[in-house]
């Protein structure tokens, strides 16, 4: 006999906001798209001239400024596209394979 397949909703209808609206702004932050990544950018802070282009050109808003003024990828969100490495004028960013 086939087992009953669990097909669960993520929220009960009584708890839905009016019109199925989403009330928490920017709640996509809960979704860690870093798990999509096959390669990760590694920044050489020595080479970084702090121009910020990697931050500007990141479609995933993953390049963040460190206290030192250089940039680091937020691996929670970085999908590893490599635009930052391609666009860095100082070649300060290299892509390395994510390990198994």
């Amino acid at each position: 006999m086939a087992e009953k397949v669990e097909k669960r909703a993520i929220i009960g209808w009584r708890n839905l906001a009016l019109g199925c609206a989403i009330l928490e702004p920017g709640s996509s932050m809960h979704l860690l798209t870093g798990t999509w990544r096959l390669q990760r950018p590694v920044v050489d802070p020595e080479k970084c001239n702090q121009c910020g282009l990697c931050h500007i050109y990141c479609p995933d808003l993953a390049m963040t400024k460190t206290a030192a003024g250089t940039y680091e990828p937020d691996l929670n969100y970085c999908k590893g596209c490599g635009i930052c490495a391609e666009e860095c004028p100082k070649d300060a960013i290299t892509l390395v394979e994510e390990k198994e």
Partner: protein
Amino acid sequence: MKIALESFEKFDPQHLPEFEPLAPGHRACQGCGEVLALRLAAKALGREMMVISATGCMEIISSAYPQTAWRVPWLHVAFENTAAVASGVEAALRIMKEKGKIARDDIPILAVAGDGGTADIGLQALSGALERGHNFIYLCLDNEAYMNTGIQRSSLTPYGAATTTSPPGKLSMGESHFKKDMPAIAVAHKIPYVATVNPAFYLDLMNKVKKASLIKGPAYIHAFSPCPTGWRHEGRYAVKIARLAVQTRVFPLYEVINGKYFLNRKISKPKPVREYLKLQRRFAHLTEEDIEIIQENVNNEYDRLLRLSQAVDLESKLTTSFQEYIDQLKLQMDEAYQKLRAEFQHT
């Protein structure tokens, strides 16, 4: 409109606003150039604005229940009616302010749709909204095909591109039509502001969006939006390809202010179109002859834009030289008068 542009303060690349209306965690593809253009446009407008979105990639990737990537008010209704929905929002704010029901009606409204939602199925609603003169910014994120449904051609798919509904074959070389001139269609509505933008030129993009928000009436902004999935290029090349599109004159950056064309970036030594095409496998099947046809079309289109923008130069030259002529006349008359006067006194 003049007043708004006079007080227009450009973004300082060193001090860009920190607030990101679009949050990380959205589900766009790796290396998506469209979400980059959208993010930069939203960033230019800041916290106090509203986004009206068409159905499409940007809607799907930013609003899948129960999470939203939006930190500003955002509304999605359907595919083809974004401009009409934005009309309603704008009219509502205006009348409710007039009736004292709300405090502000100067909140920028950003209506966003893709190339299909703009140039195909949404064209009628857009035309109506532009004609009615609503105060909103319409952003067309042009990734040159229906990417959300799986890369089917649209009326903005470029000549020669392979899509799932314009495949190259024995009798076909891919898309057989040139792109519809969507900005020119917007210009034909005699709206105050039309511009093309490209995420590789992020300051230009942000400044144009901000400018559009300061202008009363409809603004139409056409954004080049590389799509690694649909154009079949490596994700890391999204910005590079966007830049090449400008450097090869494939996608010139210009503004049309009150009907007058301004070519923002003159490309005097363009790179060959081939360089732009070769990074994208959607063009991989093209022959030398096909590429020649594309190159010729790019040349012609650029020349046309150049002539349109030179018309503005010529006009200002004409006005200046006429003024100079009048001034000279005045000077000559003055001299003649002095001479006469001197002679008169002499006698």
